[in-house]
């Protein structure tokens, strides 16, 4: 979570609200933030740390593991209409890469801005070419994009 907090200003610039969730109580969140995370990130965690004691939220999102009683590393990008645009799920031993979430948000925001007229090819980064799907692009993607 400190890795996400470290990039918080970037998320803010993109107009993204962050919400973190684990089965720990809000009281444990407080102690973790105050005692440890605030020493990794200046000012501590700048977004709400939600308690999912009981795993009800995790079940609704399909990330709760009944065997271990915790939520897996599930990350959901939700657009302003409340639609889930992306999800990623990892088992506990491997952490996520925050930059990839930022890249995906930028890509989805671009798609939304063009009202779906443009699509983002594999590995797209801001400034790189986008695709404009249509009859004239069929069989001609090679002309505008290479891996």
């Amino acid at each position: 979570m400190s890795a996400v907090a470290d990039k918080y200003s970037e998320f803010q610039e993109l107009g993204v609200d962050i919400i973190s969730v684990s089965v720990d109580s809000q009281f444990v969140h407080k102690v973790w933030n105050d005692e440890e995370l605030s020493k990794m990130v200046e000012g501590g965690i700048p977004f709400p740390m939600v308690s999912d004691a009981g795993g009800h939220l995790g079940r609704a999102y399909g990330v709760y593991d009944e065997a271990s009683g915790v939520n897996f590393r599930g990350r959901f990008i939700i657009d302003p209409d409340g639609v889930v645009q992306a999800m990623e799920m990892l088992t506990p031993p491997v952490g996520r890469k925050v930059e990839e979430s930022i890249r995906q948000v930028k890509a989805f925001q671009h798609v939304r801005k063009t009202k779906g007229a443009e699509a983002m090819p594999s590995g797209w980064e801001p400034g790189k070419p986008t695709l404009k799907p249509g009859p004239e692009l069929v069989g001609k993607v090679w002309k505008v994009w290479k891996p």
Partner: protein
Amino acid sequence: MAEKGVGCGRPTGAVVGEKAPEGDAGGKETHEREGKTMVTVKVGGKAPDFEAPAYYKGEFTMVKLSDHLGKWVILCFYPGDFTFV
């Protein structure tokens, strides 16, 4: 919601932007009524709404996902506080 950071987090039983089913105070009943775990989330579909206690900038507060409609949201689950990754 007046109460601050008390009780359990619950799915409302509805997706964001829609009212919870009538007479259903929380998602638990809806969720477990059929005696099985229902996975309701999918890409391209509305996010399951929830209301849950949180710690936020020194305060205990309630977070409701649908209050964030109109903004982009990253919802980030992780196994536990004080773990190492």
